[in-house]
Structure formats: C-alpha cells, structure tokens
C-alpha cells in the first residue's frame, strides 16, 4: 500500500478529497533521484489514484489513473491524457489537483556547498497534520529519540516564540539539549532550532550545524497525503556536512523516523483535532497550538477534525 513502485494495482479504497484548501496545494510524490526514467509509477494523492514518472528527457509526467490506467512498471506514456501540473523542487516531483500558489522557497537549497538529498521516504498510517505536529515537537525528544535528540532527565521545554509571518507559522528561539543532534555530532550540545510551517502538510526546521557555527542545517518534512489517514513522509536534508557519506546521513535520519512511526501510528484519532479542548495542550505545545489555529483559519478540513463552529 505504501510503495510507489509496487506492481500491485493500488486499491482505490480512499475517498476522494473535496477540500479546496488541500486540493489547491503542491504535493510531493517521490524523490526524483529514486525514479527510473521512462517507467510508470502509481500512487494515491488525496484519495485520487495517479500514474507518474520521469520521461527519458528527464521531464516529469503525472496523470490521473482514471484517465489512463497503466500497471506500475509499464513504459511511461509520452503524453498521457489529462496530464497534471508538475514541478521538480528540492529534488522531489510535485504535482497538484487544483490551482495552487507557487511552492514555498528554501533559499539555502541553492547554496553550492550544501548537500541536498532525500534522506528517507516512509509510509505512516496517520494524517499529514499529525506528522507535521510531531515534527514541531521538542518535548518528545528525550522519550522517543532517547540518547539521540534528547535524554532523560533533561526534559524541560523552555519558552520559545511563535509568530505567524507572511502566512507561515514560525517558532523561534527553541533550544534543547541533545546528545547527538546530527550524524556529525560527537558530544552533547545545546541545539538551537527554528521551525517553519509554510504549507499545511510541509514543515522545515533550521538547527545548529555541528560543522559550521555560523550556519544552520535545514531539514524538511514533506508529506504526501495519500488519504486522510495515510501519508508518505519525505525527509529533505539540506546540510553542511563535508564528512558523512550519504548512507550515514540517511541511516541517521531513518533511525529517527523509525522511532516516530510507531508513536504516530498509535495516536488516536489519526486526524488532527483542531478544537483547543479536544486534547490537553501545555505551554511547550505553543507551536502546535499556533499550527492548529492556522489550519482552522485557512479552513482546512482534510486530515483534521475541524473545531465546532466558533470554537476555533
């Protein structure tokens, strides 16, 4: 169900999305470097079965499977019917089912000495907003990523700042003591974080770079909402690291991901409740509180449980 390259036909078991907010976004489908040219892949986006691929000239192609159903692995059609808009950004193939604004910018990705790579793509049985909220959360580091991104008893989340700037949620001044913040870290360090949510299903963090004090590593989490309660999570790395191999970087991030996945899949309900009293927020959850309000204000309904009218 999670694999985009499976030869099994994808069962059309998801309800199609009718939420204009979710439809009018760019959504990632795959890391381009991981696609074989000229081959058809299948996936689901917002419940809609899609065929896609990269043609021999390196151009992306995406089309709804209802217009042309091809088994995965078939030769990629040159001009499929009802082709959807595409773009390749930050190494991923993006598409849309609606009429989106331009994709958010990550200026650091253009710096020549940055390593830009897809660290991991994994399926998670949860909603995209639950995955975003988990990414924004520092409080779970000592428990879920024990010995790596945090360690008991150092559990305090000190106050930080949250703002909505130019339509994006920003959390700044976040600090957390980390035993091993990145594959290049050798010792425990107080790590500075900035979080940014520019898209309802995409989030980016900027954290202290162990190799260059003056710069910050950039890590992106881009969710492909296959359905309301099923995502493929893509992790973009855009880091200054002259030493680690790609494999080492990937292994580190995959390790982190594999710790988050069982937690996310045991969160009930899977869709993110937007009512402020549905769960029990604390001060440390300031960024999540702002994210939920931001989603409510944009009127998103896909992957969330909207707050009752007026309660948002």
């Amino acid at each position, binding site marked *: 169900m999670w694999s985009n390259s499976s030869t099994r036909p994808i069962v059309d078991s998801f309800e199609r999305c009718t939420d204009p907010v979710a439809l009018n976004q760019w959504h990632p489908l795959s890391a381009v470097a991981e696609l074989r040219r000229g081959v058809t892949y299948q996936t689901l986006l917002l419940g809609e079965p899609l065929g896609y691929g990269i043609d021999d000239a390196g151009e992306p192609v995406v089309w709804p499977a209802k217009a042309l159903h091809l088994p995965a692995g078939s030769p990629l059609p040159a001009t499929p019917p009802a082709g959807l808009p595409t773009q390749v950004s930050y190494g991923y193939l993006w598409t849309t089912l609606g009429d989106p604004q331009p994709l958010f910018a990550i200026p650091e990705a253009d710096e020549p000495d940055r390593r830009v790579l897809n660290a991991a793509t994994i399926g998670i049985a949860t909603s995209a907003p639950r995955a975003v909220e988990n990414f924004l959360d520092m409080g*779970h580091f000592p428990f879920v990523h024990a010995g790596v991104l945090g360690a008991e008893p150092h559990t*305090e989340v000190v106050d930080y700042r949250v703002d909505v700037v130019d339509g994006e949620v920003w959390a700044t001044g976040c600090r957390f003591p980390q035993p091993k913040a990145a594959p290049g870290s050798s010792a425990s360090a107080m790590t500075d974080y900035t979080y940014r949510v520019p898209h309802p299903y995409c989030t980016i963090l900027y954290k202290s770079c162990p190799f260059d004090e003056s710069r910050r590593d950039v890590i992106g989490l881009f969710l492909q909402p296959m359905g309301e309660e099923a995502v493929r999570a893509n992790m973009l790395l855009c880091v200054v690291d002259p030493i680690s191999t790609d494999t080492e970087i990937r292994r580190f991030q995959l390790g982190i991901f594999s710790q988050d996945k069982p937690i996310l899949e045991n969160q009930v309900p899977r869709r993110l409740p937007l009512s402020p009293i549905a769960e029990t927020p604390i*001060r440390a959850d300031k960024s999540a509180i702002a994210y939920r309000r931001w989603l409510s204000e944009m009127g998103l309904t896909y992957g969330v449980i909207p707050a009752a009218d007026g309660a948002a």
Partner: protein
Amino acid sequence: MNDEGIAAAPMLDAAFSWFPIASSEDLPFRHTYHTKLLGRELAVWRADDGYVNVWEDRCLHRGVRLSIGLNDGAELKCQYHGWRYASRSAGCTYIPAHPADAPARTICCTTFPVVERYGLVWSGEEPLGDVAQVALFGDEGLTLRPVPIHAPAALVAERLRSYRFRPNPTATGSSGECTVESGDERAVVVTARDGTAEMNVVFFVQPVDARTCVVRGLLVPRPVDDAVVGVLRHHNERMSTLRDEVEEAAAVMPPPPPMQPRVRAPAPVAEPTHTPADTRTAPLRVVVARKWATADGIAGFELESIGERLPAFQPGAHIDVHLPNGLVRQYSLTNGPGDVVRYRIGVKLEPDSRGGSKALHESIREGDVLAISEPRNNFPLRRDRATTILIAGGIGVTPLIAMAQALGHAQLDFRLHYFAQSPAHLAFPEVLDLLGERVVRHLGLGPTETGQRLQEILAERRPSSQVYVCGPGSMLGATRQMAAELGWPDDAVHFEYFKNTTVVDDSSAFDVELARSALHLRVPAGTTILEVLAEHGVIVASSCQQGACGTCLVSVLDGVPDHQDVYLNDAEKQRNDRMLVCVSRAKSPRLVLDV
C-alpha cells in the same frame, strides 16, 4: 451444576453490564495490556500492589495509546512525552516538559470499574450490581485460552449453546452427554456427564466491537493436574471448530453497524499552576485509619477515603486538614509513588500550638472522620536534574520523604540530609530505612555545627544538581544565604517554609484596584488585602495566610508591591508582577491587581 449455573439477572443494556476483558495471567507485573470492549480501546495494567487499572487507552495530552506506555509498578508513563499517571486515580503526576509545575488536578484519565474473579478481569462502561455469580463456583476452576472470534457476540453465544465436549477426554469409550444448563448472550454454561464424571464449562463472551468477540471459558471443577494438558487440548480443538463454523456463518451475514463508544467529555484545558481554583474548601472526607507515634512529639496519621477514591498527588503536595475546633492546618503528604490508598501525614506537637497540632495529637483518634482539601502542590519536585540534595530540619522532613521516595523510584540520584535532635526524633524511620544509605542523619547538632554541616553539603555543587530544603525558618534562611554565597543559582534552590517567621509590617495604608472585578478599595493599616477583598465578596483562594504557601498569588498589573512573603524568590520579587495578597502590601499609593 444445580439450578441455574449463573444467577438469574435481568438482561441489562451492555453499557451497564460487567464483561471479562482479560485473563488474570495477561497482567503480569510491569506489563501493559491492550484490549477492547464495546468498541472502546482500553489500557489495562497491574500496579505492584496488585491493583488492576482499566483506563481509556489515550494519553490526554496528544492521544497516544497508553497501552504502549510503561508500567513502572506505581505509575503508567506515556511513551510520547513521559506524562505520568498514578495507579487508581489515573491523575497526572508529572509533565516532564514543565518540571517545575505541578500538573493541574483536572488532568485525569477516564477509568473504568474493575473486579478480578475466576481468573478473569472484569470491567464495563458503567456496570451495575456484581459480576456474574457462578453457582458452586469458587476460585477452583481452570481458565481456558481466550478465543477471539470474528463474529458478533450474540451469534457466538447462540452457537456456544451447542458446544459439546467430553468431561474426561483422555478416557476412551462413550462420548457422554452434554446439557446446556443456562445461557444468554453474555454467558453460557454447558455440563458434560459421562458415568460419574461431570464437568462444567462456563463461557463468557466479551464483545470487542460489533464484529468481533472473545470467548473466555472456565472449567469447573479444575481437572486433576495430570489431566490438564489433555483437557486443554480437547477444548482447544472444539473451540477451533466452533470458531471456524461461526466465522463462516458470520461472513455471509450483513455486517452489523459499528459500535460507537460513548464519547466522554474531554479533559479541561490545563490550568496554570497558580490559578486559584477554589477557596479554602474541604471536599474530601477521610477516616483516620491509623494514628501512631512515629517519633518523639510527632504523630503519624493514615487517612483513608470514605467513598470516592483519593485524588492523585505529587511529591511536595500538602492537604488542608479541617479540624473539629474550626482550625485549618496544612500538612505535607509523605507518600511515595504507588502508595495511593491512604494519605500519610506527620504532625509535630507545637509547644505554642494555637490548637491545631494539639487537637490532632490529643483529640483525634483512629476512626474519626476529618474533612480535608484535595492535595495542592506549591513545592513541586523537578525531576530533570542529575542530582537532588534534600535538606530537612525536624518535621520539615515530611515533603522531602515523599520526594526521596519519588526520586528513588525514578532511579534518580539524591541524598536526604535529615537534621534532628536525636534518633528518637526521626519521623517515619521505617521509610528512612527503606531509602538506605541515601539518607544522611545529622543528629544533636547546635546552630554552629549545623551551619558547618550545611556548608559542607552545599559545597558539593555540580551544574546539574538542585537543592530542596524544608525546616525551621532560621535553617532555611541560613541555607538560602549559604547557597547564594556558594554560587547556587536561585532556580536550583527550592524551599518551603512551614511558617513565615518574618514579622509582617501591616502599618501601611493604600488603594487597590481590581481590574477584572472593577472595584476600587482602600486597604487600611492592620488589615490585609485578602481580608479587604473578602469583605467585598471577592474570594481569592488562600491557605496559610502567612505568605508561605503561595496559594493566594495574584498578578500585579500596576504599582509596586511591598513583598513580605517567603514564597517568591528574590528574582521573582524584583519583577513586581505577582504578589501574595495575604501578607504583602504596597509601596506605591495604588496597586492594580488582575482579580
């Protein structure tokens, strides 16, 4: 089995019935078990005292299943953010992201009633009466392997009526005869006879959800040990056959509508620590279950709830005890984690008692009923430091005993330095013994020697250590001053005064404006802000009224308070944004309070 195998009871709505939800052996110590009843997911765990907790399977914070949490024998710890919930009350005792705050009392998981009987654990939404009574049935049965079946409970119960088995499967010969003694959709009793041999099997059906159930069987009487394996194998075969048949039948039936577990009201949003929730109320009634002399001049009391179970508490918490003579006194709970059935306090007979400690020592006896407040915690224990130094003077040991046990249970490093006159003056010696070498006793020291000893203790400062101190005012003052001189930061030195021994200067007169109540009041000399507010019907929660407990903390919007309390530390006082209205007054002619 005579008469009816199961006592006749009118069929109740499923929400009001008891169902078996686990076998007792599913719940070994330090394990957490997941099950489902009537569509609701449950986290089930046994505390080290044997008590079985049945809770809604969601952490209140972010909805992660508690059944993947850690059972430490006293508390269940959520895997996601380490929130801790106490056995029995299910109240939250610690939120690691905010180690300096006591969790709001309202953060409490949904619990369900529980009974353990016949090797099974029983629960229900709001069950009435008692669990099924099985006639002629002691605890001598044999619990069969639970069999999950993908079919509705009613259909399975119906098929169980035609369950047939041999009382003695290892014997050859006739297959005997079976009769259904009784049965409804919750339970079926089948009796098999073969000559003189007779065996009963009682089946209880756990409706997991609309499409699934678990059949939990009991054999009565328990077969002799040699026969157990053969009997279990026999029933395993028969049950497997029954399962295959009933699942086949269910597969061609229209699927039943899903069960919607009744939605419970969400927990209220966490309240800030210092929100005055209620004024001095005593909603709990407790009986003095035990009173004893725990040390020279110190009486120990164990207080047991009448009716409702006692609310959760955290180390450092105290209760207000309302005495028959009208006085209200605060006492710290000495209980460690998991010790949640009785509140335990220590009361020192004060020579100049105004009637509080005297009443408890002389009038109150075992069996008496007292009114107490819910536990409040103005002295929360941070558990995010590598080392904790606890310094107790005399009866000031009581909150620190609770802290020492919590730190020990969490396997965090600590020392409890206990200053007392003599061995006979050490309170709760049995708890001290359990804490072992981590308790350091300093006995019979004069003021100078005490000062030297404190100096030595505080000289061992490491970046990730903290100090908690509780005792007489002079000792606290000395400890705080010494700590400051030795470079301890304010936020690493925590203290609780039993009483504020500084003399309050109440000679000033000034005005207060209450921003929220829109009142403008005059506070004359000799009267406290708290008293003036109360006269005008504005109730601010307060407790010690000595500037020590922090209950009456309010926000200051304008003006300069004249801090006279011992609760706020110097840095907090300098900010002038909060004050204790029971003792503190105004330096400016006017104060604006957020009340």
